[in-house]
């Protein structure tokens, strides 16, 4: 099975570094980190990820605006976006993550198995 490309867009450098290490250690993913939301579309176009993990509260550009920008690009519109955010509690979306208004949310911090489960679920939906 080939690895899937995951793009992480989040301004927290420490967190994204740890996330990349953890996800790549599963052997399932190749992870690219973008810490500046303003570069999200350009980075996505060059990396062409299978899935994007997107923070919500970021300086310069907020997550929902990034999601709209990604969706407006015909080359990127079908890429599933999972919001990974500290602004919600797992009690609001369930321990396994869940949908709010059509978007998939995972509370930060969630354990690695929960995050992987959410990623896999969204990748399956894509196929």
């Amino acid at each position, binding site marked *: 099975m080939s690895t899937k490309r995951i793009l992480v867009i989040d301004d*927290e450098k*420490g*967190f994204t*570094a*740890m*996330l990349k*290490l*953890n996800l790549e*250690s599963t052997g399932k993913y190749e992870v690219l980190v973008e810490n500046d939301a303003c570069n999200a579309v350009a980075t996505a176009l060059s990396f062409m990820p299978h899935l994007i993990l997107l923070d919500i*509260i970021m300086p310069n550009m907020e997550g929902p605006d990034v999601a709209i920008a990604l969706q407006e690009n015909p080359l990127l519109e079908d890429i599933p976006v999972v919001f990974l955010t*500290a*602004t919600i*509690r*797992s*009690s609001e979306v369930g321990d396994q993550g869940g949908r709010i208004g059509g978007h998939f949310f995972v509370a*930060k*911090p969630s*354990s*690695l198995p929960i995050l992987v489960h959410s990623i896999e679920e969204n990748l399956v939906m894509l196929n």
Partner: protein
Amino acid sequence: MEAKLTDPLRTLIVEDNQVDQTMLAAMVTEASRGLSFVQTADTLQGALNLLHSYEFDVIILDLNLPDSQGYETIRDINKAAPKLAIVVNTGSYEEDIGIQTLRIGAQDFLIKGKYNGYTLNKTLHYAVERKRMELELILLYQEVKESQNQIVQMEKMKMVGTLASGVAHEVRNPLATVLYGVNYLYNRLESDDKSIKNVMDTIRESAEKANNIITDLLDFSHIDQLNKTEVNLNEIVEKSLSLIHHNIQEKNILIVKELDKQLPTVIADTNRIVQVLVNLLMNAIHAMPNKGSKIIIRSVNKSSNNATIIEIDDEGQGIDEEHINKIFDPFFTTRRANGGVGLGLFVCQNIMKLHDGTVFLKNRPEGGARATLTFKTSQ
């Protein structure tokens, strides 16, 4: 009610001079056409005994008694009967004494030999009215103070809520970094060195504890957003129990359900009531250190009161008497060392208030504590 000068007053005369005492009694009786209830005493102790046995509207008080002198006499009477109007009856007039008696708690003062039946009667009635107004003002002041406290408390909580949302985001990011970092290192650890694993476990547990605290604060800041529907509380009990299934199993706790199958529905926010029940059940579990203890959860339809009740009985150590008035206070906890913030019961109480319901906790005579939730049954 309109008060008249002829209304009889229950009057206590405290005067050690027998002539003065008899004269005063006669004047009071005459002014009320014999209808007043009049008692006399010639010592402070005698007066206190009468105050203990009877209710009076007004006391005519000589300040120099065989067993009490001066202002202390007023203080002692005021303490024994705080609702009683006091008219001081002084032997000689000194202006500052008169004013001082009012400051200490008397309503008026008379100078012996300088009044007649009419002025005495008028003074007594005016004193009673002044005392009544004073008591009303005190009550009003207390009400204002109470509502002011409530407003301050609400503002404080609003501030904490806003702060909590902001802080939660900022703190959860570094926490997530710590948790993912530890997770990565843990999986990469090749050594069997237990001390390293212990250190990592401790780091992970601490970060998780901090995350729980933040989650509690967030729960609290979202407290007023309710999504009410018609619900069956038995179903909410089942849902709550399933959420803490793991904790129940871990401590091998026996759950006894006594659920009334005919329970009427109530209007409530399911998630919020689940939150309340989980909180109370977790408190019960924490209160029972011994494995194999029992929790009884009961639903009762009190149709006569239009109420539906949920009770949770545990076999724990109960609530310390000194804590019983504080358990619903925000930030009060007996489990701070274990990561308790002290918002659990406070949040529960607020959620119940938003449902026009109540939550009570008390110790059971047979041991352990009982939590009682009361809901209004839907019409």
